[in-house]
């Protein structure tokens, strides 16, 4: 219980293939923004500022890796960062981008660019951890703000944040929501990693699985639940893959 001397860590934000909603979500912390700036020095944030820096204590990465130049850039950032944190589904698990991996992209590309397709090289969409070491992941699409704040506070206090590994249903029940299955919907909450405070079910909508699945998810049981609630197996698989194509497209039963 000692107070450490205050040296503000250098923090940078980078974006790769994404909608940049996570960046925006950070700016939506209006009430806390100035307090946060008391503790950190933002040295690079392309969306909001011109400055650039050489080294970072914490680099927050948004977006997926989807081109060869992304690969180069993320290696470079990793080299210059003490701690690298993936922000949001695109960065932590490929997110919605990885849905493109399910389609014959080469052919699609050819239709758009014809013979020039090699001008615009593309790779399958990948999470950051597919290329470099990631020290921590903040899940969600958009990344969950309570989790972002929690992780940031933990890091600033010199701690290692603990990753939640229980389902969205837990937070849903703590809030005493009516289960959306009882409203006639199907929900991925039972196997989706919590930490979002069950925000979608709390607003009457089904969980889309944007935070990735808990460890050891019982996917077969989940598919059974979905199909028993009236959607086809094919639809059920698509639903699970909405945000989880990168991690789980291979492991679902054919």
């Amino acid at each position: 219980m000692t107070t450490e001397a205050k040296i503000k860590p250098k923090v940078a934000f980078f974006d790769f293939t994404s909608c940049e909603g996570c960046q925006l979500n950070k700016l939506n912390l209006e009430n806390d923004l100035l307090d946060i700036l008391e503790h950190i020095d933002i040295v690079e944030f392309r969306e909001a500022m011109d400055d650039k820096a050489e080294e970072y204590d914490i680099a927050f990465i948004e977006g997926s890796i989807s081109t060869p130049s992304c690969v180069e850039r993320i290696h470079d950032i990793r080299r210059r960062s003490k701690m690298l944190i993936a922000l949001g589904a695109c960065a932590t698990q490929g997110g919605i981008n990885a849905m493109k991996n399910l389609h014959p992209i080469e052919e699609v590309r050819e239709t758009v660019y014809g013979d020039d397709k090699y001008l615009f090289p593309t790779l399958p969409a990948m999470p950051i951890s597919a290329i470099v070491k990631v020290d921590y992941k903040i899940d969600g699409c958009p990344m969950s703000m309570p989790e972002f704040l929690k992780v940031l506070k933990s890091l600033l206090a010199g701690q290692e944040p603990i990753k939640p590994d229980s389902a969205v249903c837990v937070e849903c029940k703590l809030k005493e929501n009516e289960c959306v299955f009882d409203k006639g919907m199907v929900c991925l909450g039972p196997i989706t990693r919590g930490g979002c405070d069950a925000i979608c079910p709390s607003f009457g909508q089904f969980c889309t699985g944007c935070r990735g699945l808990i460890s050891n998810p019982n996917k077969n049981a989940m598919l059974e639940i979905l199909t028993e609630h009236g959607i086809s197996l094919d639809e059920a698989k698509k639903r699970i893959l909405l945000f989880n194509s990168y991690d789980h497209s291979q492991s679902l039963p054919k």
Partner: protein
Amino acid sequence: MKKYQLNNKQLPSFIDHLKKQGTVFAPHKKGDTSYSFEKVENPNSVVLDYNRTLNSVKKYFLPPREHLLSFSKTDNSFRKGSFKNEKKIFLGVHSYDMKAVLKLDYNFSQGNPEENYLQRRKDSSFIGVSFIPDEFHFSQSVGIPLHDTEGFDIYLEQNSDGYTVKIITEKGEKLIDGFDRVSKAKDISSNHVQFQNKLKYNYNRLPEVFEQSWNAAVWEEVSKKCVGCGTCNLVCPTCYCFDVEDNLDLSLQTGTRDRSWDGCMLNGFAAVAGGENFRETLAERQRHRVHRKFKYISDITGEPWCVGCGRCTAYCTAGISIVEIVNQLCDEYEQNYLNRPAVVGLNAERL
């Protein structure tokens, strides 16, 4: 026992009468088909004819989330979480939920009696209400008769015009005192609902089944369908396991030590640093959950610790039924240990 008649249209004024004496909590509609206990603001939105609430009244004594301490790192000081000192009246509680409160009373007062629970729990009065069992209720099968009034101060038994008000305790007498609109109980016989027994064995025979239940096949079978979401734990009125976590606020100097409901079906529940997880599989976790309801505490107290509310079954998205689990245990027990048909209790015909 004193009895009065309370007609449906007198209910709001009765609730107003209660509100003068304390904070009243009662079931309200929630969402499309559900109910929840809420603080009563408007007596007209209280719903006494309901199947079950999402959470039981447990949430008022063991809140889903609570600050155990608030602390300051700067000077190493802390304060305990505070408990509101208010008189609480719980209106419209079903008998099984009342029983669950009594069971929690035991859990929180034996061993180390816990201030947080007990402080919140004192100054509570309970007004029960009768209910019509649905497909999930099986409280009678675990020894809680439909019109069990233990724990209640007043019990409302529905009849064709409203409710027969039964005054159970002195406290109940005081609660109704001054409400002059009740009339003497009419001689209307209340709706006598037949409770179908759903457990294959009478509850007092379950200990012998659970003696042999450790290696039953049902655990593996159920775990194939279970997704480990923990819903069954969290909605259970007699589950009380919790997690504790420190949360700093943005000053990084002050914060709170918080506890929240936890569940033994969840991944990290029995995991320790270094990677060992003492209940790795969903089968082991199901076994533990059901044993906590029917064996571990029951061996000491002689009562099932499940009150038959049916929540874990009604709210399990995978459709796993605790009644079916127990019945399958009975079957397995019969096959493997008895080799003869079960001696069925008096009114324990199988559903």
